[in-house]
């Protein structure tokens, strides 16, 4: 089944917030291969964080990632209007030959 994310979060410009992603000891808890993707309506997902806490080139340092046990988190500081999007977490899960699992998604609303 999918990784568990809150359905929605919201914050005002300038604020900080965190989105959680809960899995199991077979995926998030066992591997440091958690990624986060941002998806604006009608657009393809964009990689924001990989390997739990690494940022690809071009992603603002307002975005950061962490993990504790079976739960990974995406933190966004200094919230901006353009951060409003759907966010999905993703984890490698070696319970098949090669299997990856996504979260159900979190809608971030900037108030």
């Amino acid at each position, binding site marked *: 089944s*999918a990784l568990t994310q809150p359905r929605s979060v919201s914050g005002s410009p300038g604020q900080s917030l965190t989105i959680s992603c809960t899995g199991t000891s077979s995926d998030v808890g066992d*591997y440091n*291969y958690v*990624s986060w*993707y941002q998806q604006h309506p009608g*657009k*393809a*997902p*964009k*990689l924001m964080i*990989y*390997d739990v806490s690494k940022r*690809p080139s071009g992603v603002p340092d307002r975005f950061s990632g962490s993990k504790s046990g079976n739960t990974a988190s995406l933190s966004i500081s200094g919230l901006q209007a353009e951060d409003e999007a759907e966010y*999905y977490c*993703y984890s*490698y899960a070696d319970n*098949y*030959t*090669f*299997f*990856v*699992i*996504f*979260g*159900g*998604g979190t809608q971030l609303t900037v108030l």
Partner: protein
Amino acid sequence: EVQLVQSGAEVKKPGESLRISCKGSGYNFSTYWISWVRQMPGKGPEWMGRIDLSDSYTNYGPSFQGHVTLSSDKSINTAFLQWSSLKASDAAMYYCARHTTVTTPFDHWGQGTLVTVSS
């Protein structure tokens, strides 16, 4: 610039076959893998399977094994996702995405192909 460009939207009837494509450019296509991801309306992404473009080795997610086929043509830098008999439940947006190993992230995605299946 790395680009994955997918084929256009499709409208099909149940039982029909379909093949959609994903063409890579701006990088050495055959040194990467391509995964396909399904996204149904209002839902999170689901990993369908991957193909290693160097040798066409494939793995499929449990929900998709036997229902879809992944293939590629390195001569034209293109990966394909194919159905032999579509169901209404196959209606979704489909994305291709590239990565290098089982544990590397999907760092570039195609723009998506919308598949509509209706009688």
